[in-house]
C-alpha cells in the first residue's frame, strides 16, 4: 500500500496555502508600521512625534536669566508667585530672538481685571475689586506697579485711589 500514491491534489492545496500565507506575511510587513507594538498596541514612534512639537511658552526660568531687575522687583511684592508669561503671554520666540521679537505692550485695564475683578466664586482671601467703581476709569498702573502691586503711600494720595 502506498500512502503517497494519489497526493497530487494535496500538494496543489498545500501550494495554495503557502502562497496565501506568504501574501499575508508580505502584506502585513508592508501595512503595519515598523514601530507598532514597541511599547504596546500602538505605534511607538507616535510618542516621539507628539514630543517633537515646538514650545510656545518659554517658562519663567528662562525669563529670569536676563530680566533680573524684574525678578528683584517681584520678590518684594505678592506677584512673586505669578510667572512672567501669565501676563506677558507666550514668549518662546522672544527667547530665540530677543532682538527683533518684542513682547507686546499690555493694557493693564484688561489684564488686571482678568484676575482681580470681583466674583462671588473667587476665594474669599483673594484681593478683588469691582473695577467700575474702584479706579474711576484710570488704568491700574497709574497707581499700582504691576510687578510689585502694593501701593506706595505717595502715589496713593496723588491719584486719590481707594481700597
Amino acid at each position, binding site marked *: 500500500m502506498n500512502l503517497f500514491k494519489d497526493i497530487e491534489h494535496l500538494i496543489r492545496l498545500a501550494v495554495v496555502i503557502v502562497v496565501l500565507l506568504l501574501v499575508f506575511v508580505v502584506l502585513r510587513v508592508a501595512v503595519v508600521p515598523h514601530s507598532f507594538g514597541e511599547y504596546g498596541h500602538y505605534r511607538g514612534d507616535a510618542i516621539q512625534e*507628539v514630543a517633537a512639537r515646538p514650545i510656545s511658552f518659554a517658562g519663567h526660568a528662562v525669563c529670569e536669566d536676563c530680566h533680573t531687575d524684574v525678578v528683584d522687583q517681584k520678590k518684594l511684592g505678592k506677584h512673586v508667585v505669578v510667572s512672567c508669561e501669565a501676563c506677558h503671554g*507666550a514668549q518662546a520666540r522672544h527667547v530665540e530672538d530677543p532682538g527683533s521679537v518684542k513682547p507686546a505692550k499690555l493694557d493693564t485695564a484688561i489684564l488686571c481685571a482678568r484676575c482681580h475683578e470681583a466674583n462671588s466664586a473667587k476665594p474669599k482671601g483673594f484681593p478683588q475689586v469691582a473695577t467700575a467703581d474702584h479706579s474711576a476709569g484710570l488704568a491700574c498702573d497709574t497707581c499700582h506697579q504691576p510687578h510689585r502691586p502694593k501701593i506706595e503711600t505717595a502715589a496713593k494720595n496723588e491719584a486719590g485711589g481707594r481700597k
Partner: protein
Amino acid sequence: MDITRRRLLMLLPAAAMAWKYVQAGTPEAAPNYKLTEHWWAMLIDIPKCIGCGSCVRACAEENDVPEGYYRTWIERYHVADWKIERPDVESPDGGKNGFPPHADEGGKNFFVPKLCNHCADSPCTQVCPVGATFVSPDGVVLVDKNYCLGCRYCVQACPYGCRFINPKTNTAEKCTLCYHRITKGLTTACCEVCPTGARQLADLKNPKDPIHEYLRTHTVQVLKPHMATGSKVFYNGMDGSVR
C-alpha cells in the same frame, strides 16, 4: 563590478525602499528623557482657583486648539443652599474670558478647572479599534493623529468629556499634558501661567516630588472615582456636588 542595465534594474527596488526610510526620517528624541522613569499626574487645588482663564488661553496658544474647542476648561459651580445634588454649572467659552458675576450671589460658589484625567486604566484607549490612542509608558494618554480614523468611539467613551474631533484634521484630539514640554523638563503651559498655583504638574515616580507629601497631608479626591478609571488628576478641596 560593472553596472550593467540588468544590475541597475535589480538595484532599483532596494534603493526605492531605502529612500522611503530616509524620507520618513528619525523623529527628534528628547535627550536624557527616559519613558520608564516618570508617571505624570496633576494636582488641582480648588480653593486657589480664581477662574481667570489663563490656563485655557495658554493651552489654546501652546497647542493650537481650534476656536470653540477646549483641551482644558473651567467650570463655575453655584450650589444653592437647598440643592447640593443639582448644582448650576456654567462654562462660558470654557472660561477663556473669565466669568461674569453670577445673578445669585448666595449659596456656595467656586471654580473647577477640568482637563484630561490621564487615567491609568482609561476607557478611551480601550475602545480604539486601531490602536491610535494609548497610555504612554510615562502615564500620559496620547493620540497618534497619523493613525486615528476619526471614528469618535473614544469621544463617547471618555466619562469626563475631555476629547473632541478636531474640525481641521478630523482626528480625535485631547490634552497631551503638554507632552512636548514635560519631556523637555518644562511644566505644562496651564501650570506655567496659573497665577495662584492652583494647578501643579506632578511626577508620581519621582520620590522627591512634593506631590507625595501633599497627598499624605490633604484630603484629595479624583473625579468619578466609582468608575475606577485610575484618574491621575487629583483635586484638593473638592465639593461633593462636583461631577
